[in-house]
Every structure is written in C-alpha cells, then in structure tokens.
C-alpha cells in the first residue's frame, strides 16, 4: 500500500564528504472513505557511505572533480543508478560553503542534476537538518521536553533547539574541530582567520609552521567552549560576537537536554585513545566539552547519529510532499530552484505581483505563493483565479501556484479555464516565505502527489 521515494543525501563538509540513501514511505493517513491525505510515515536509511575526507586542492579550495569521483563510486557501491533517485539534497556545509567552492561542486555534479533535485543549505537549515539527523527532534517529542543539538563539525557548530518535536530556534558559530590542523610531526599547517585573531589578541603561542603546543591549544579551546556555553545561557565570553556566524539563540528556552553530533561528538560520547589521530583539534575539543559546564548543567541525550547526522538529515528530512489533491502539467516537471514570489496581500494580487515581478530577471520562471483560504467558496475560488490570471498577463512563463490551504486542484481547473493556453501547476499544503526557493520533483508512482524541497539559498 505504501508508496516510496528514494532520497539521496550528500554532505560535503569542511572535513568529510558522505552520502546516504534513504527510503521515504508515503501512506494515506485519511480516515475511511475521505479524500486521500498522503503523508511521509516512515524513513529508512538503506545505505550509508564510508566517511571520506573532503578532497582539497588547497587549505580552502575543494577539489570538485575528486568529490564527484567519490560520489560516483558510492552510487556504484550501493548499486543505485542516478535515475533511481526521486529526490534528495546536496548540502555544502561549514567553511567549505564558500561561494567559489559551492559553484565548482554544483558544476561538477551537473551530471546528476537532471535526475534528482539539488539543494543547498543555509546555516539555519543546516542546523535543523543535523539536529533531525541526530534524532534530537524525536527525543524532545518522546520525552515531552526541550533538547538542543550541537552539531560540531570541522568548521562550524550548528545549534538547533527542539521543543516537543518542533524546531524552536537555531544558531551557528565558527567553532569546529579543523580550525587548527597539524601534520604527523604535529607541526601546525592551518589556523582559521578568526582563531588567528583571538590568538593574536590573547598572545597565545600558536602559529602556522610551528609545533602544536597542547597547553596553548587548551587555552583557545577553553574560549571555544566558553562561547558554546554562553550560547545556551551559561557564563559569558568576550569572543561571543566574533565567533557567532550570523545569529545566536534568541529567547530563554529552558533547555533541559543537550545532544551532540558532528565529528567532534565522537570525542564527547566515546573515550578516545589517540586524540591527535586526525591531525586536528576535533577530538581534543570533544574531550574539553565533555568536561565542561555544558555537560554538567544539562542532561546529556544520546544522539542517534554523530558524524553522519547532517548527511542522514539531508537524505531523510529535507523532502516535503504536496497536498494530495493538486493540478499539474507533467511536462513541466521536475522544476529546480524556482525563486518564490510571495503575495502578502491577497486582496491585491495583481498589484503586488506586477511590483514584485520586477525583482526577477526577465524570462525567469517563478513560483507564486499564496496562503489561500480555508475552505473557499466557489466564488472565492473564481475571484482568486481571475486575479492571478490578470496578474500574469505580462509574465510569459508557466504558472506555478503554491498554496498553503487545501485548494490546489480546484484552483488548477479554475486557472485553466481562465488561461486555456498556459501550462499550469497548482499545488497546496506547502508554506513558503519571501526569498525562498523551491524544487518540485516528478510525481510519485500513483501520480497524485509531488515531492517538494523548500530551501533558502546559501550564497547571499
């Protein structure tokens, strides 16, 4: 009875590159003879790749071709062809997510792009994805509590706060395990710019080319830990603002549990024999966190995934599905990275559309997003269809209308009647914001629903 979607998640991080395949099960959850209401009811990871070091051309530049080879090899190993995947996300995270790196990777992966949906994460989405991959959302739901997950990777720490299963807040800090790296002789090969700034102002004895001094490194790691503590309301650090990527946690959240994921979490949950093994401060930082106030002031929740949290999240937690009664022209699909034109005032659709369409490049296909009405009357429906058809007179692309309320199918027919020569997609049950981009995948087996990925683009 259940339909399935095969989803791929690819995480290209500062330190590691990983891939997972997961199966999303879609079932009808409506009662008895009601109109079907499809929902994702189960997620099953069917393949986890090895954990590869992200191949770099230099300290800051990803070797995109080498990344592509890794991914191709993992597809082959899993026995899955590119055509088999229905949906998924490529996530470029941490320090790696610089514009030139991301562009190179996306270009290298263009071979994949015709067949599945490519997405990239912003810091907020990345926090949520890794938190969900770590299972902190489920933990908070099952225990009826608030849980903050710290995903501490090579370059950044992404924090997501979940309150009884719902995402409540996110934050990101430039704190990670590969911000200081050294070679097998423990000679320092790299220090990140922000960390250099702290070292200079504090006069710590650490610099590139010199030997790694554990006593000095502990001082800088103490600062990192202090910043993390302050992020959840314990103590304060003069470097809090400096290390904050773009925002901290806002309100007083009364966090009860914390969990950790990312490579550094290995050093928190496990006893490590050789903390220098990976040529960076990751495992040392993990040990510091384990001994810190963070682990004393909060109860520690066990993560379901540590180093794989982001990739599992990308594979399993990025796809939504449309409502189950929708209207679409199959030849338009799939659609990728459509910018969203959000109508805020639905009593003046034409005016707002004509004003905002100027923000986009001429000829760009856009998705028009409306909240719509809960159980509209037929005349409400006709009026909105009329307004939209008036609005799009000067816009030549296909009509992609996305509603929050359940009205997609009826609206599709209403639009078709007004605009008989235009290609139309009208879907519902999807909430979008100004500035979002969406991908719309091919229909599922029975053709009743479309997979959708909503994203906020990273490169701003």
């Amino acid at each position, binding site marked *: 009875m259940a339909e399935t979607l095969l989803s791929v998640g690819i995480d290209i991080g500062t330190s590691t590159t990983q891939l997972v395949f997961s199966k999303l099960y879609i079932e009808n959850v409506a009662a008895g003879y*009601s109109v079907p209401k499809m929902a994702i009811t189960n997620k099953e990871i069917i393949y986890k790749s090895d954990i590869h070091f992200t191949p770099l051309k230099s300290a800051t530049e990803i070797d995109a071709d080498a990344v592509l080879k890794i991914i191709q090899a993992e597809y082959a190993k899993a026995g899955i062809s590119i055509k088999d995947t229905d949906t998924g996300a490529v996530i470029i995270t941490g320090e790696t997510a610089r514009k030139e790196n991301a562009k190179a990777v996306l270009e290298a992966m263009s071979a994949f792009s015709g067949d599945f949906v490519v997405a990239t994460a912003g810091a907020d989405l990345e926090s949520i994805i890794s938190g969900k991959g770590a299972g902190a959302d489920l933990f908070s739901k099952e225990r*009826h509590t608030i849980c903050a997950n710290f995903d501490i990777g090579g370059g950044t720490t992404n924090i997501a706060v979940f309150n009884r299963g719902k995402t409540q807040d996110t934050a990101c800090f430039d704190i990670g395990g590969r911000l200081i790296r050294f070679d097998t002789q423990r000679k320092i090969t790299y220090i990140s710019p922000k960390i250099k700034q702290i070292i200079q102002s504090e006069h710590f004895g650490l610099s590139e080319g010199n030997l790694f001094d554990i006593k000095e490194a502990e001082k800088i790691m103490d600062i990192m830990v202090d910043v993390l503590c302050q992020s959840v309301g314990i103590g304060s650090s003069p470097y809090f603002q400096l290390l904050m990527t773009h925002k901290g946690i806002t309100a007083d959240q009364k966090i009860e549990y914390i969990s950790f994921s990312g490579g550094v979490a290995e050093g928190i949950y496990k006893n490590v024999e050789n903390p220098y093994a990976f040529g960076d401060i990751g495992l040392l930082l993990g040990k510091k966190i384990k001994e810190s106030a963070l682990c004393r002031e909060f109860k520690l929740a066990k993560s379901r995934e540590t180093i794989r949290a982001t990739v599992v999240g990308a594979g399993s937690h990025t796809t939504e599905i449309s409502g189950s009664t929708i209207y679409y022209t199959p030849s338009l699909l799939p659609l990728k990275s459509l910018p969203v034109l959000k109508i805020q005032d639905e009593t003046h659709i034409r005016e707002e559309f004509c004003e905002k369409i100027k923000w986009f490049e001429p000829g760009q296909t856009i998705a028009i997003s409306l909240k719509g009405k809960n159980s509209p009357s037929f005349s409400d429906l006709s009026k909105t269809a009329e307004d939209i058809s008036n609005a799009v007179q000067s816009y030549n692309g296909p009509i992609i209308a996305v509603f929050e309320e359940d009205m997609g199918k*009826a609206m599709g027919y209403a639009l078709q009647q007004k605009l008989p020569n235009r290609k139309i997609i009208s879907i519902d049950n999807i909430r979008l914001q100004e500035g979002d981009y969406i991908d719309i995948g091919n229909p599922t087996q029975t053709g009743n629903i479309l997979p959708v990925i909503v994203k906020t683009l990273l490169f701003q």
Partner: protein
Amino acid sequence: MQEAELRTLVEEMVHKMLTSNEHHEIQIEKSVKSTTNSKTQNTVIEDGCIPDISKVDIRKQFLVENAKDKETYLEMKSKTPARLGIGKAGARYKTETMLRVRADHAAAQDSVFSDVSEEFIEKNGFVKVQTLCNSKDEYITRPDKGRRFPGNQLEIIRKTIPEHSKVAIVVGDGLSSAAIEANAAEMIPSMKQTLQAHQITVGPVLFVKYCRVGAMDAIGEVTDTDVICLLVGERPGLVTAESMSAYIAYKPKHGLPEAKRTVISNIHKGGTPPVEAGAHAAELILTMLEKKASGIDLK
C-alpha cells in the same frame, strides 16, 4: 426554530452561571437594607449578549485544574479531536463542557430532523422529487422506502435527466440537511468546471427529499445514465453536523452491491473543502467513464 430556542436557553444558562455569584451578593446586601417584607428584588435586564459557546475552539480549550504539565497536555490533546482536558466537577462534567456537548448534539439533531429549505432548492435551480417516504419519521425508520420513488416522481426524473446521459448530479437530504445547505452549492460548480475542462456538460441537478443512497439506483434504472454522483448529508457526529458524502457509481441499478460505489466522505469546511472535493470527484467520474466501472472494480 428548535435550534434558535435551544441557543437562547444555552445563552440564558451561561449567563446565569456567570453572573449568579454577583447577584447573590447584591441581593443579600439589598435585603439587609430593605425595610419591606418583599423577598424579591426587581431584576434589571442588562444590555449585552452571552458569547457564542460554539465558537470556542475545543481543540485548544483546557480546563484541568493544577495539571502537572499543561503544555505537554495541550500538545497531546492537539493530536486528537477527542474532548480531552475537560476537568470535572466532582465525578461529573463542568457546566461549560456539558453545555457544549448538548449544543453540538442539538445541532446534529436539528440537521437530521429539519428539511433542506425550499428557498435553497429554488435558488440553486434544483428539480425536486420525493421518495416513497411521506415524513421524516417514516424516512428514519423505513430505509426501504427512501430508496424508491412513486410513478409520478419517476416521470419527473425521466424528464429532468435525458436518457443515456453521460453524467448526472443528484443531491439528497440524507441524514443532514445542514450538510447539503453548507456544501452542495460550492461543490457542484467546481465539479462542473472540471468536467467542462474535459468537454462534458451536465444537465439540471435533481434534489431528492427523504433520500437514501439507494435512490441513485432507482434514478439510474429509469435514465440509464453512465455515471451518477449523489451528494448526500451524512449522519452527523458531534464534531460537525455539516459533513456531506459523494456516492458515485457507474450505471447504478437496483441491487447494485455497495462495494461498487465509490465514496468520498467528510466533505465540509473542516474536512475536505467542497470546492476541492468537487474537482476530485469530477476526476473520479472521468476515470469511471473511461474504465466503465466504479467502486472496487476501479482498483
């Protein structure tokens, strides 16, 4: 009528409940001061109106006193329409929830035992016919009679729906007149719009008074229509009295097994919106015309 009376009664009771303490104090105070022998005081009829209790969102209502964890309770409650978190007065219900259940039941009963208004039937241009039943009471107790028509009514049916039509839409009161008045006029144009997009036009709509689902078989029998879609009021629950179903069948005739009908239930503003259900039902009709089948034969 009945509904209005009950509403007035409910309002009065709520009002008494809310103001009784206050009145007591005033009365005691006055009676102490009073030098006359009269035990009663003149009551002032105040301006104002008791708020509509049916507008309270019971999904969010929480009346448990000193709950250990209210937030989690509300979270749990949000997962079910069941009337949870209602507290108690001794081992009985609080007045507010008791009155709400009575109000919801009153709405349900009224929707069963009242008729679809003539005005509604006229406004929508429906052609009215009646089954063998002569009263609501007969309708409720004699399901057999609600499935058949007297000869003169069959004549009207024949005149309204041309023989061998592709699609006919029929509206029946069923067990909820309120459901028909709330949804039919929204669903039918949406259904017609979708059928029109596939070059199918639908003739006049029949309205059947005292209608059981099987009445569509009698209509199919005399008109030999390919697909009949019957919109009928569902037996109301307390959550809503306005839920409508669509029963759709390919060439319905007497003796049609129930499994050969395709059913869409739960059509109302809190379930599947009628306009959306209309487009969905129309697509099902198109599939039936193409596959020449309905119900389990369609799967």
